[in-house]
């Protein structure tokens, strides 16, 4: 542990990096209320590595931050010696549009990246919350995604290469710039979703998607939550190919998006309307501004800036989405909580916002966790106050894989420098 005063450490680190890259931490830098002693904002991979090497050698802890949109996710940290902000490591390094790939620095925001890719009508097909502030590094570290995961997948499905800085400061590469590649262990995938606990993402390479010509969204109002499952099943049965298949509650509703050439998107949307009506629901096709509006409203239901409260990720198998929704409703009512749900109806991945007393939220989490057998579903806390996190834990049961996960963490970061205690395996 660092014993000396912070300014000694500050001078020491800046001397090592050869530039005034580090500064003292301030209240506005706090993570879950913990103010870091130092804040480092490197502009080069060498300074990322240098900071990490220095911290590891001197027994200091490092927390990594991208845009800060998800910095409250994961368990509450202990004392933080260094907050490593990746904000200034930003920019698209290469857009190989003929190959549908791009390499981007970790501190680039998703919006900034996609603005560059748009020049060739391509994009990184991820639509998680806060695209204007969330950075690629943060999105990768949390494997975060949004409605279009239904068709395009999550970061783990799209990442094809990575440069990472290890806890000891060593830089390593994995994968490459080609979309198909099985040479070596897939470290990029290993780091994706590791909550910064194994290494720091310096840059990442992704496979991209072409932007579709046109989009239509079908807004469906369902008679009840139990209607959701059959509707999804009916869409699947007719081999409908939506790019997003979202659920929202309460009241139960769905948004189904089709992206293709115009006539095709329109035609698929009309088929989805007919199907909804056959199931006793009501549906309209949205396009243009109405469509954008509907999606903005949907996205902000759980993740809106004005929404405080606890955000949970509840995952189930696809055919249990309706019953899980019913359980969520019951558990919220039993515990007198306000709640809102959005999520991937076809994949079984739901985001749930709950507001109410701490014990009530804790009871809500426990009730839902108890419902899932290992491998059949999970309830993970994304954003919550430190109190709730300490009451029920962030991850819930991890299962018999935990010892080997801990061993991987220990091998990558034997001194426990990186995001200690914040990753799912320490």
């Amino acid at each position, binding site marked *: 542990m660092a014993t000396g005063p912070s300014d000694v450490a500050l001078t020491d680190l800046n001397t090592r990096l050869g530039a005034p890259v580090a500064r003292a931490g301030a209240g506005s830098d706090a993570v879950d209320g913990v103010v870091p002693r130092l804040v480092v904002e490197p502009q080069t991979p060498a300074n990322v590595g240098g900071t990490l090497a220095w911290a590891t050698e001197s027994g200091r802890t490092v927390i990594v931050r991208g845009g800060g949109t998800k910095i409250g996710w994961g368990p509450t940290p202990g004392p933080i010696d260094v907050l490593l902000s990746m904000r200034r490591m930003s920019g698209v390094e290469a857009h190989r549009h003929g190959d549908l*790939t791009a390499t981007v620095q970790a501190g680039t925001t998703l919006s900034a990246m996609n603005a560059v890719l748009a020049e060739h009508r391509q994009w990184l097909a991820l639509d998680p919350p806060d695209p204007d502030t969330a950075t690629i590094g943060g999105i990768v570290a949390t494997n975060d995604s949004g409605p279009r995961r239904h068709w395009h997948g999550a970061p783990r499905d799209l990442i094809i290469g990575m440069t990472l800085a290890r806890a000891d400061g060593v830089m*390593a590469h994995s994968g490459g710039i080609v979309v*198909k590649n099985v*040479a070596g*262990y897939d470290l990029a995938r290993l780091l994706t979703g590791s909550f910064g606990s194994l290494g720091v993402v310096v840059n990442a390479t992704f496979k991209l*998607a072409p932007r579709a010509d046109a989009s239509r969204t079908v807004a469906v109002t369902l008679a009840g939550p139990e209607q959701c499952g059959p509707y999804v099943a009916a869409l699947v049965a007719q081999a409908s190919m939506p790019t997003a298949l979202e659920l929202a509650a309460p009241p139960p509703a769905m948004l189904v998006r089709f992206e*293709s050439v115009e006539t095709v998107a329109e035609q*698929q949307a009309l088929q989805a309307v007919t199907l909804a009506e056959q199931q006793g629901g009501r549906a309209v096709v949205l396009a243009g501004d109405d469509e954008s509006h509907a999606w903005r409203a949907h996205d902000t239901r759980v993740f809106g800036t004005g929404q405080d409260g606890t955000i949970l990720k509840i995952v189930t198998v696809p055919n249990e989405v309706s019953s899980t929704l019913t359980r969520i409703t019951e558990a919220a009512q039993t515990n007198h909580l306000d709640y809102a749900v959005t999520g991937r109806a076809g994949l079984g991945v739901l985001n749930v916002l709950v507001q109410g007393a701490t014990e009530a939220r804790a009871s809500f989490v426990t009730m839902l966790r108890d419902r899932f057998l290992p491998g059949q579903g999970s309830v*993970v806390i994304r954003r919550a106050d430190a109190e709730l996190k300490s009451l029920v834990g962030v991850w819930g049961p991890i*299962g018999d894989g935990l010892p080997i996960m801990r061993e991987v963490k220990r091998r990558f970061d034997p001194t426990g420098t990186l995001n200690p205690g914040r990753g799912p395996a320490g």
Partner: protein
Amino acid sequence: MIDSDFLSQLERIVGTEGLVRDESELLTYESDGLMSHRSRPAAAVLPETAEQVQAVVSLCHRHKVPFVARGQGTGLSGGALPHPDGVLVVMTRMNRVLDIDIPNQRITVEPGVMNLEVTRRVTPDGYYYAPDPSSQVICSIGGNVAENSGGAHCLKYGFTVHHVLGVEAVLPDGSMVHLGGAALDSPGLDLLGVVVGSEGTLAVVTKVTLRLMRRPQAVRTLLAAFDSTDAAGNAVSDVIAAGIIPAAIEMMDRTTIRAAEAAVQPGFPDAEAVLIVELDGPQSEVDTLFRQIEAVCERNQAWGVQVAQDDAQRGRIWMGRKAAFAAMGRVSPNYYVQDGVIPRSTLPEVLRRIRALEQRSGLTIGNVFHAGDGNLHPLVCYDDAVEGQAELAEQVASEILSYCLDVGGSLTGEHGIGSDKACHMPKMFSDDDLATMQLVRVAFDPHELCNPDKLLPTPRLCGEVPGPYRAHPAEVAGLATRV
């Protein structure tokens, strides 16, 4: 060390039926699809249950005996090459389909189940398993998981890793773990994402849960001939530039077209190159995009365009493509398959270099590849009976890999590193990269028992300075050069 006591303990676990110790019977397992690498295991076991696998691995762990898992032995990188002092764990008897869960679009199988069997089992329900290696009739799901196998339709639908939801696996210390599951996003590190593609070096997989896909509404397949591979390559680029991701785009050159014709008579035109383009999805989308594909082909002077009118015609086109490897046996006594990947925009440049190499070396090189994702499969033809040709072929194949790396590509797109290319890894990765990968390996397998000497270069395998090249007479004679 494997002694008679060890063997009788193995026998107690798997029964007399499940233990192979007879020298001549062990010959069956001497190599996988990479016939040029051979090694006889000290013993082979054929477990029937996960518990037996666990007991075998635990025994090996206690005695520090190396072990290698083997599926159907169709791997092309020597991944299932036995360890001479070790136990070969043959998974073929673990071939039960355990659970078909159509409402959740999942299937759970034992690793010895064949790839195509998965699709066969769910076809009546209108579903299929997307990854379709050309070897799908003869390769196992366990091997697919280990190699992260691909196939022609992976351009649109992704590789094995995108379709494996969970595994049960025995770690090298004999403990059993469950990674992933029927539901997505299991909390914890994504070790599933690392075990898939780890070439049997991290664990022995004993159960696999796969994602099933709904059969698309419509499928349309087109075959087009071109007067040069460049023209065919340009057509591929134009398709991608138009924002179309077909289900598959495959290319074959004159050598492989002729071989396929000789072997299975798919009725391919005798051209410098053919492209097979397949679209699938909703009927209206397929119809619209298909017209665009036809226009692209026309712009690039395609001729002899055949559009499959029914499943039988489509089947014939794919038979021609999928038989290409085996068909090379008709035009050459032996061949060496490479699996390098290039950014697809560099296709014309790399193919030109391969042509030049073909002339310089005097060895015929056939090309059949997944053009959509730049995965080449150069087939270097040689005759083992001719002194030095086998080495020359390996040399030529190595050189092609250098071309791939020169343009930022990869050593392998789907066949894996195995024992074949482990010594090439330092050409693609730095010492630090490899040391970081080694961290994963030692976390799982600190005693180096689980398929050792594969995937990562070791001094034992590659000598003090890792690197595959020894000066070859042909090289000295200027027939082949190092890059």
